[in-house]
């Protein structure tokens, strides 16, 4: 099924008078996962980007914008076809996407070869950070291993034996590898579960039998919802729970109280104390009536990054080298505070450990416990030939 929505700034009724031809505007493809159970992530990313665009009156760097939102269906083959459509039929200048690493790996090559810039609002696969780094690819998020390295460093001093669990696919292995890179304690055991499993009774029994000092989980999306609830039901909450992408603003509306006190790690949380972030969270909640997740924050930043770069080149999108340099300069006000790009086009930013808490209004969000790493360079940057 084809899901293509066009949101044109023209239809927003902002500018009804004489307009320059659309060819002089900027065309942006927004590719997110918008179907299946992973759609909640993609919806956050899409909404974050569109919110920023609305705040800027539908313009990016002074140019009229046309945004084409497409659904990658979390299928790399579908995503490649949609990417080709974006290039050939829509002639986009920039693509903001995707949500998952496997899709990112599939679309980045074809898009950048066609001269399109790719801004990732979430995945930062190692293959694009090291030797395979790409001049037209910018991760506005983080390198995939970094949140795990943060939690690994944090747990090291607190638990001697940790039990690891992740789904059995590439990202699952990458995340546990990231954790083990900085974790100095003993790994009690590591389990890999199928991506479509919903009932974790067998795994929870194994955790109970192993009696570790802590559990580290990478169980994204729906997996995390079920895992966290069943963890609590099995009476395991006395074992500290650390994770990445397992308890966040996408899963918390379903996990609610069951996740309170559970830890996560990342580059952002809704309560991150910058003026820019407070404004973003308030605007997002007012418009969409839900707490933004990191996916929305990154996509929101991507829009402002794009705005700053187009403005810097005076709207001349044909000069790719200038546009690339302007993106790399990252001369925009990030919700994450200090933000810059390293040589491999991955961010240099601070990382935090967070904990789930219930807010006064009954909604749940992650809150920063402490800053763990200051502007770390990712583990792969040294292998990137770009300078």
């Amino acid at each position, binding site marked *: 099924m084809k899901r293509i929505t066009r949101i044109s700034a023209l239809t927003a009724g902002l500018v009804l008078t004489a307009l320059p031809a659309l060819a002089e505007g900027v065309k942006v493809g927004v590719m997110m996962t918008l179907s299946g159970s992973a759609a909640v992530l993609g919806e956050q990313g899409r909404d974050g980007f569109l919110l920023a665009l609305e705040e800027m009156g539908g313009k990016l760097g002074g140019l009229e914008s046309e945004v084409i939102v497409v659904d990658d269906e979390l299928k790399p083959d579908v995503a490649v076809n949609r990417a080709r459509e974006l290039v050939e039929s829509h002639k986009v200048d920039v693509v903001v996407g995707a949500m998952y690493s496997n899709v990112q790996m599939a679309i980045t090559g074809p898009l950048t070869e066609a001269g399109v810039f790719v801004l990732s609002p979430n995945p930062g696969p190692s293959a694009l950070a090291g030797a395979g780094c790409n001049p037209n690819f910018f991760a506005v998020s983080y390198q995939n291993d970094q949140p795990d390295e943060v939690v690994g460093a944090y747990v090291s001093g607190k638990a001697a034996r940790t039990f690891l669990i992740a789904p059995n696919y590439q990202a699952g292995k990458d995340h546990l590898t990231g954790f083990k890179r900085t974790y100095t304690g003993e790994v009690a055991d590591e389990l890999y579960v199928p991506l479509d499993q919903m009932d974790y009774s067998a*795994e929870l029994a194994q955790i109970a039998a192993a009696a570790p000092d802590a559990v580290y989980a990478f169980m994204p999306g729906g997996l995390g919802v079920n895992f966290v609830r069943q963890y609590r*039901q099995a009476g395991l909450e006395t074992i500290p729970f650390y994770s990445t992408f397992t308890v966040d603003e996408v899963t918390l509306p379903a996990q609610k109280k069951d996740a309170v006190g559970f830890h996560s790690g990342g580059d952002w949380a809704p309560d991150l104390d910058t003026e820019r972030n407070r404004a973003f969270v308030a605007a997002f909640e007012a418009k969409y009536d839900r707490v933004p997740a990191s996916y929305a924050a990154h996509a929101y930043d991507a829009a402002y990054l794009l705005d700053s770069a187009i403005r810097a080149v005076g709207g001349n999108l044909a000069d790719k080298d200038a546009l690339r340099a302007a993106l790399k300069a990252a001369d925009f006000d990030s919700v994450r505070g200090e933000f810059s790009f390293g040589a491999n086009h991955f961010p240099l930013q601070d990382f935090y450990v967070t904990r789930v808490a219930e807010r006064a209004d009954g909604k749940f969000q992650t809150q920063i416990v402490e800053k763990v790493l200051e502007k770390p360079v990712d583990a792969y940057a040294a292998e990137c030939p770009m300078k």
Partner: protein
Amino acid sequence: MTNLLILQGLNGLQFGVLLFLVAAGLTLIFGVMDVINLAHGAQYMVGAYLAAAFTGLAGNFLLGLVLAVPVALAFGLVLEWLVIRRLYDRSHLDQVLVTFGLMLMLNEGVRILWGSAPISVDLPEALSGSIPVWGTLRYPVYRLAILGAGLGVALGLWWMIHRTRLGMLLRAGASNRAMVSALGTDINRLFLLVFGAGAMLAGFAGAMMVPVISAEPDMGDTVLILTFVVIVIGGIGSIRGAFVAALLVGLVDTLGRSFGPILLRSLMEPDMASQTGRTLAPMLIYILMAAILAVRPAGLFPVQR
């Protein structure tokens, strides 16, 4: 290891009774009505969503469960009247096509109504938490409740099938449909009842699982496949067969998933052991099915025809 075995045994039994609840309806629909219903897993999903929705309205899971079950029954009756009724005289291929389409529509329907984010439900205070079962090992109270409810339903079904007139008609229908009809029983009403009851049992299973796995689109698809394995092993049309086969599949699957990787870990790396163990564990069920069918081609408890 003993501790783990006990816990995993309980997990296996709990999974087994859950499979039985779904399989009981499917085996009757297939055995008595001769309809292959690929939408049966979707009815499990519908039950889960109904329970989640009613719990949201009523503010209490038990009340939500009580409300969801009759609505799941009504949903089954409406489905039979609208769609399934037209399939009795059609070939199995037509039935597969229509019910497969129905499954897709139901999956997309819940997505339109409730969105694609998983919906969860809080447990009532009395059933949340865990109790010690063996030394320091604890087991969730709610999973024991599922086990109890499943066994209760199994007992009730056994009584109905072996001790009531309706049960007699069902057994007769599974053996010889034409004869039951010729003897003056309103076969259409019997079918309507069977389909509704099947939908209700699947819905009940889904509703009971909401506090554990939360309601998600497509959640019924994996259950459907396992359920077909169960009814084939048990013998199509046999409730007793479905019960024994469901427990067997539940235990083999859970123990295999847990102990397979543990045994393999002494031979290989953890992620490899996990992967191999997990590739082998789901296969165990099919190996079991193949072995049983080799010895008893009509399943463990074949219905006399």
